[in-house]
């Protein structure tokens, strides 16, 4: 009796651990299949152009204000921080260079990616999950329309194509946020600031920024579709799907950011 008691918690723990590991592998497998299927449907006809343009508007155009605002404030705050930090070893003059580097290489893409997770992933997940719960996905199938082709492929393609543009906008606005703060309250000369920024940035900085944007765009839209399509039943299922999609998108975006940074810049 006493041995079973002693063994039970350990066995229990091991079983839980095993189940969690297996569950993770299964989830990774499902997600991989889902991704492959998405790209296959993206590349084979029929193409639903209306859905695609709708997604372009929602993912890209309508995200511009929020991307612009976050980038503006982040760039401004960054300039203040670097000035204050740099002053400690009298290196205040590096503000333009560090702001440019920080925004273009890291903050621009990451901020845009996280905004996509908040704005786009959640709305896609909630929409598709609701469609699933109200049998609209089943109805699509009976109308000879493949849900992956009609719902997932256009959205992910829109993410892939528009988020790099959003990142470009975010980078630009972020740098200008830094510039604005620098010339208004840190006594920098406007022309010198801009010249330093432009001279300092190199092609790989910009390319890495846009590549990150494309990757984050795919992650954000794909997570919304995946969790939406696999939603549980009822309103609770929709809520759960939305929450999980945003968390997954945010974590994966940050993880991908690390990996891409390493791939681009770790020499």
């Amino acid at each position, binding site marked *: 009796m006493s041995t079973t008691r002693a063994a039970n918690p350990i066995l229990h723990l091991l079983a839980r651990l095993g189940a969690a590991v297996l569950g993770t592998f299964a989830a990774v497998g499902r997600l991989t299949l889902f991704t492959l299927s998405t790209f296959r449907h993206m590349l084979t006809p*029929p193409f639903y152009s209306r859905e695609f343009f709708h997604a372009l508007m929602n993912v890209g155009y309508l995200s511009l204000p929020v991307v612009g605002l976050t980038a503006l404030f982040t760039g401004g705050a960054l300039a203040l921080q670097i000035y204050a930090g740099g002053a400690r070893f009298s290196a205040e003059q590096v503000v333009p260079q560090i702001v440019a580097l920080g925004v273009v290489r890291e903050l621009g893409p990451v901020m845009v990616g996280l905004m996509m997770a908040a704005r786009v992933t959640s709305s896609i997940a909630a929409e598709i999950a609701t469609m699933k719960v*109200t*049998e*609209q996905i*089943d*109805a699509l*199938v*009976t*109308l*000879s329309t493949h849900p992956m082709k009609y719902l997932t492929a256009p959205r992910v393609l829109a993410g892939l194509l528009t988020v790099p543009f959003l990142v470009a906008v975010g980078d630009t606005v972020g740098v200008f946020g830094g510039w604005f703060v620098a010339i208004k309250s840190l006594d920098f000369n406007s022309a010198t600031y801009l010249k330093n920024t432009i001279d300092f940035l190199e092609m790989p900085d910009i390319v890495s920024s846009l590549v990150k944007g494309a990757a984050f765009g795919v992650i954000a839209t794909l997570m919304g579709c995946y969790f939406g399509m696999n939603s549980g039943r009822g309103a609770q299922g929709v809520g759960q799907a939305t929450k999980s999609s945003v968390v997954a998108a945010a974590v994966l975006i940050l993880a991908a950011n690390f990996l891409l940074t390493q791939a681009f810049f770790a020499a």
Partner: protein
Amino acid sequence: MITLTDVHKSFGAKQILRGVNLTVERGESCVIIGGSGTGKSVMLKCILGLVTPDRGTITVDGEEVSASGDRDAFLARFGMLFQGAALFDSLPVWQNVAFRLLRGSLKRPRHEAREIAIEKLRRVGLSPDVADQFPAELSGGMQKRVGLARAIAADPEIIFFDEPTTGLDPIMAGVINELIREIVVEMGATALTITHDMTSVRAIADKVAMLHGGKIRWHGPVAEMDTANDPYLTQFITGSAHGPIETVR
């Protein structure tokens, strides 16, 4: 001809279908009755391949449903009205009705598709000004009828109606019953209808099948329904609270 042979389906530990056998002849109107939650909707979804049965075979004109043939061509022969209408709320009503006519193999010019949609809406008793509204702006009964119009929009050979008259007023229910009868008689379509409405059963059925306990409990011509010597069926038809069918399930 639709044939179900020994179809089983469980969700988790819940056994829903436990060996369904049913044959629906071409051009026949078959009505499925049975208590709430007995698996009538699940059965229709099995035939369409939306739900995969655990066991058993389903064939349509001798061809197995699960066989990975051309699913689009297979589904193009079907029309389905879902119990909850399942309208696409991102599209206006007419584009819902004309969904099939706006894309895929049955695609036709937009204005033509719209005309057909408006004609189908008229047939289910909806006026043309509904066409440009969105599903969320309609009442439940109106949504149901839009779903019905969508199911018949492409003149399918086989039509499934999941509770077509639920939520409709008696007059509109009559209109829909007549419409279903017309579709079967004039267009020679095969119809499989789920309903709880006995008036509707008598109006549209050639054959009646009763699903109970995961099996087809009774199957026969509608004319024999009242004289059938089956206590389950009799209780269901008369709507009595007393009889072999449990009232808590």
